[in-house]
């Protein structure tokens, strides 16, 4: 009986869910307005009318100019003079919901993230068109993941604002100093006494702890968002070409060992499937090419992975099995890490560059399921 009642109420709830022409809302969650920002607008598509009505304002440029930290960061990053110091200060503000009355970096960092995502993806797709999706995503994360961006932010010399109002007053520090620091801690967090080597998780951090018992500290997130926001601000003031150059100089210039990111669980099976996908008519064969000292303590075998008369890869191992596996992995890596070059042997141009020419080779066929 009870079960029936429950069933009936469940059915009622479902019929209450409004459905659009195609979609039951149960399977898709449409973004809602954040009520804490009290956003107002005239028409949904009138983008210029959107406004958060909680009290926030932008830092006046004259105040920002009094902050030596901002000026130092501006010139250290070699930002163009059109880049306002007030925008740079806003990029360092991660305080939510106008708790300090200043506009925060949410919009700037979202824009910066979009710019970073595109240019990183474009670069990787052109550089390694055949990379398996899992490796591609890992590589994107290594270029522009939160931990990487936080490292970059620290190397830019951005400081965290840990000075409470009282300390600020006692040390007679000029008011403008704090506008050049990374602001994400609330006033009461600054006042708590910290033990060396003890890190207490905040409520938000507790919620973000995942199944591997890992979490991203708020400080890392703040640094990453600041770096993204600096990039977003660059777009806002000087446009996309300069931003792209900045991303290539600061983010994509870092050396990434993509070949170390591979892990094969069933390499032979993967190679067979891959050759099937590529339409090779001959079967994959693993053959012994050379061996020495089979009866000794240090035997060495050289195996090769072949398709018909073509050798795809070669591997050396101290047992037949090891040599075979190494040969197969060598063949797979040779395929996946293929990087096209243009006629003069240079790296090919990117789609966002002038004079870009399409090459068939820059379209990968995608991974196979094993």
């Amino acid at each position, binding site marked *: 009986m009870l079960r029936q009642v429950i069933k009936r109420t469940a059915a009622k709830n479902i019929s209450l869910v409004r459905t659009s022409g195609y979609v039951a809302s149960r399977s898709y969650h449409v973004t*809602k307005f954040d009520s804490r920002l009290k956003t107002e607008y005239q028409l*949904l598509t009138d983008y210029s009318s*959107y406004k958060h009505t909680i009290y926030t304002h932008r830092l006046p440029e004259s105040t920002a100019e009094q902050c030596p930290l901002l000026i130092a960061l501006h010139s250290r990053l070699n930002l163009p003079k059109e880049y306002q110091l007030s925008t740079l200060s806003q990029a360092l503000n991660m305080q939510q919901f106008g708790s300090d009355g200043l506009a925060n970096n949410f919009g700037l960092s979202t824009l910066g993230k979009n710019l970073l*995502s595109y240019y990183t993806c*474009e670069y990787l797709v052109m550089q390694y068109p055949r990379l398996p999706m899992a490796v591609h995503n890992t590589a994107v994360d290594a270029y522009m993941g939160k931990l990487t961006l936080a490292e970059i932010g620290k190397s830019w010399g951005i400081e965290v604002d840990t000075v409470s109002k009282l300390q600020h007053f006692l040390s007679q520090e000029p008011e403008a100093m704090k506008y050049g620091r990374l602001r994400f801690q609330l006033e009461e967090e600054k006042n708590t006494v910290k033990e060396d080597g003890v890190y207490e998780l905040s409520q938000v951090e507790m919620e973000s702890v995942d199944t591997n018992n890992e979490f991203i500290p708020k400080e890392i997130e703040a640094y990453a968002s600041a770096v993204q926001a600096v990039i977003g601000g660059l777009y*806002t003031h000087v446009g996309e070409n300069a931003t792209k150059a900045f991303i290539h100089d600061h983010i994509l210039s870092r050396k990434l060992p993509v070949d170390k990111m591979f892990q094969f669980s069933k390499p032979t099976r993967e190679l067979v499937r891959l050759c099937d996908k590529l339409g090779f008519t*001959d079967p994959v064969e693993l053959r012994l090419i050379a061996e020495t000292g089979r009866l000794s303590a240090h035997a060495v075998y050289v195996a090769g992975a072949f398709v018909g008369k073509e050798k795809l890869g070669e591997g050396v191992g101290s047992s037949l099995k090891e040599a075979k596996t190494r040969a197969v992995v060598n063949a797979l890596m040779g395929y996946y890490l293929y990087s096209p070059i243009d006629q003069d042997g240079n790296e090919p141009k990117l789609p966002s560059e002038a004079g*870009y020419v399409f090459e068939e080779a820059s379209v990968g066929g995608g991974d196979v399921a094993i």
Partner: protein
Amino acid sequence: MTISSIMRARIALTNVARNVECTRSIYLHKGPRVAGLKRDPEQVFVTNQGYKYGTDSENIKNIKQFLSDKYAVSDELTLQCLTHKSFGNGIKPHNEKLYALGSKLVQLYFAKYVIDTPNTNNESAINGKNFDVIGTPIAKELGSRMALGIFAKQNGLNSVMFWKSYNNKVNFASSGEMKVSAQMLLALVGAVNLVHGKQTAEEFIREKLLSTGELEDITVKIVQEAH
């Protein structure tokens, strides 16, 4: 038998050995799946509506029309855009990478599009760009899989797609059709980006997705219905 005749016979033997070509004859199984048997491609590479995989004009007609000559891509690439990785366990070239590239470009383009408000009177705007729009439902749903999926359906772009649903009897969203359609559309953007470059791909987004106002109308409906 003389020595020379033995030699001749040997040479003839080696010639025979050289001429023998190894051919594989594999049994291709028709009918329901049996573990260990390779299935006949004629039967496997067919969608559940009966479209056969290939660059037949019937399969890619709608997409070719949508792309027009200005943004045309090759037949093979069009077919790759239409193929999801679920089709034949990814044994055919599929659109996953193109989708990844296309979705990044669309996200970026829409972000730039919504903040481009030169005559805003919001004091928090920087350089005529209103950042208060970012994070609002309209900005987030504009390039969402729901809006793009419905757009693809309304324009008949997803009538032929090569993919496999876990259950094609349930509705548009639950069967995965919405997601796969949106991915297909984004893969098209990715393909146009690779073939014609970023500038043309952005023109493509503006001309084909935004200038008719259709995508924005769909998005407005989605946002209004959710509230």
